[in-house]
């Protein structure tokens, strides 16, 4: 059973010439215990997708399911915690009263809530500000309170829309650590973020949404693998003549200080490169398949779509 399932979701805002197609048939699955990162530029449809899965926005077509329950049913949201982007707590609430309200709405028993609210406030570093009105909170404090309210129902599935937005680098590292801890607890996390380095560090799988379509999806390993490009560290560096000989074996070759980067047609072709280098008395000090950063993958994907 998938923790989260989106099947052919479509959503159009507005009518006529001014209509905007936010989603154009998005399908994805998130397995239980997985951290799924959804990337996309502003207006790509990331927030709309989450809102449809939580029944905050109604899809024009397609179906969303949470733990096999249709997402339109209130019960489907029982195991869910949600941190919206640009969320706003009413200013008259205090950190503690906000968590109590959301805990009660999430169906948490009063006795449990009495214990859990201080725990969560401590977890997000708001114990000292628990009784203060939200209007006196900084952006980072509001964001941490938002994270605490997402966790107050002890959810099995977390939807986090830009969770580190407005949080300082220390706070970001804390949130990352928290996400990793939640993953160890076998919770499913659906993460929307602009911070690609953040997604790269914590996500198991990533999807890229562009123009309302899921244009690319896969594990981090699969997405960042740069085809059959290998980086070979040598000692000494290959001579220009040797480089010429290598060019005959591979698609492309490029020298860098301390080695060469070769692009081969098929993975086994790299063995022939190593054999040639060894035969010419060049020592191999390292060999690794070249990886792209997630940012490179993301930009390449957007360029390809453009």
């Amino acid at each position, binding site marked *: 059973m998938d923790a989260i399932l989106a099947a052919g979701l479509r959503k159009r*805002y507005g009518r006529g010439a001014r209509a905007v197609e936010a989603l154009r048939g998005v399908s994805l699955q998130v397995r239980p215990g997985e951290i799924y990162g959804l990337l996309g530029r502003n207006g790509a449809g990331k927030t709309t997708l989450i*809102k449809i899965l*939580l*029944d*905050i*926005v*109604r899809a024009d077509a397609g179906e969303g399911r949470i733990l096999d329950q249709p997402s339109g049913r*209130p*019960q*489907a*949201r*029982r195991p*869910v915690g*949600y941190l*919206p982007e*640009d*969320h*706003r*707590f*009413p*200013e*008259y*609430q205090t950190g503690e*009263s906000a968590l*109590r*309200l*959301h805990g*009660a*709405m*999430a*169906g948490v028993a*009063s006795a449990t809530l009495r214990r859990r609210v201080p725990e969560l406030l401590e977890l997000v570093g708001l114990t000292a500000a628990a009784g203060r*009105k939200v209007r006196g909170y900084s952006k980072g404090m509001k964001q941490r309170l*938002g994270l605490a*309210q997402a966790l107050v129902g002890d959810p099995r599935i977390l*939807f986090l829309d830009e969770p580190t937005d407005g949080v300082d680098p220390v706070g970001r590292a804390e949130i990352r650590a928290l996400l990793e801890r939640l993953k160890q607890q076998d919770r499913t996390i659906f993460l929307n973020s602009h911070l690609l380095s953040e997604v790269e560090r914590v996500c198991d799988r990533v999807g890229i949404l562009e123009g309302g379509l899921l244009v690319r999806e896969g594990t981090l390993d699969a997405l960042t693998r740069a085809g059959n490009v290998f980086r070979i560290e040598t000692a000494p560096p290959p001579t220009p003549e040797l480089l010429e000989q290598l060019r005959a074996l591979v698609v492309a070759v490029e020298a860098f200080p301390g080695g060469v980067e070769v692009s081969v047609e098929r993975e086994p072709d790299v063995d022939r490169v190593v054999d040639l280098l060894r035969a010419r008395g060049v020592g191999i000090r390292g060999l690794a398949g070249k990886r792209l950063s997630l940012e490179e993958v993301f930009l390449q994907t957007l360029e390809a779509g453009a």
Partner: protein
Amino acid sequence: MRVWLAVFRDALAEAWDRRAFQVLSAFALLFTLACFSIAFHVRTAADVLEERARELDQLTLRMGSSTSSSHGGGSFELSAASAVRAGDGLPPELEGGHWIEVRFLAPADLDTMVQSWQRHEQQRAARRLFVDEEEQDPEPLPPVGAPERRSFLEQRFRAFGYDHVHVAEQGERDGGPVYRVAVRSARDEEVEGGHAVSLLFGLWEFPTGEFSAAEMMVMFQTGLANTFAGFIGLLVALLVSAGFLPSLLQKGTLDLMLARPIGRSRLLLYKYSGGIGFVFLFGLLLFGGTWLAFAVRTDFASLGYLACILTLVFGFAVLYAVAVPVAVLTRSGTLSALAAVGVWGAGSAVATTRQVLDMTVGEGPSGLRQVLDAVYTVLPKVSDLGDLNAWMVSRGLLSEQAWELRFSHQVPEVDWVFSLGTTALFALGMLGLGVWQFRRRDY
């Protein structure tokens, strides 16, 4: 229930934060203190009887807010009032009462007063039925005889609030008939002018005059229920609470709430009921506090007054329901408040126009009348709740006899099933519209 309580607590926190709760509570406390400063002092029974007897020919016709007085036209003299004693030959139920002798200067004087009284009673009946007295041919009056004269005196003194009245003809003195009228009241608080009312802890004291203490209390309580709570309190509560729903519907706030495992209808209705709970608490403070003050200081403690909490809450619930769809569509507290107050004003204006038409042109031009009737049927009849308050308070404070005799004609006859039923239906319709909009919208 837990979720509702949590949302209710949140609504109270919001009301507290907007200082609305403090302002209304302070007003409630102020009024409770003011009521605590009111006291009634019983006046000497003989003085009261002499004073009442002097007004034998003053016929006052009270109808709702209007009062008209007329002079019966007779001339008479009074003896000093005396206490009834065992050897006075009066029925035993008059023991503990007082008597007074009335000598009419001429027999015709008494008969003029009797006829004025009979005419007055006819008018009272006609006005109760909203019959135009001037167009109506007056019924011929019966000839005045000894029974009519005795009956007049007996009814007149009963109308002053005496339960037991005994009239005995004492023959003639200096050409004028003399009557001895013995009276006793089991409920002193229902005798006209039987008390002096003291306000502001005795700073201002005056006799209740043509009113009994119980009637005075009815006026105090209906004034509080209709003017302070039913108008000013309701208006302030509407203006303040109209912002509750838009604050929930703000972008960023609503996302947090809608992601919870609660249906949208429940969420909206819980928030709506939070506003109602806030007004209920205000009503409890105001009516509970003033009721207690009246009970402690004046011994008047009627449940009818406490029941006004329900009419306040009902009136608020109806008008607050108007704010629901407006808030859902516009997310504006100002527009929601304006809509609620506007419907309230429109309902009252239509009801008043119908009444004016009734009194001026009777049934009126049929087209206009039909339109007015249709609009009246649809709009909430919040102004009728004032009449309901008056009815509940007066029924709670006055005995059956006093209510029938002195108050029943002041409370207009209202078809409560129609009035409350159509008003409730209007509120349900508004709520339904709000819920329907809220369920179908994207946020």
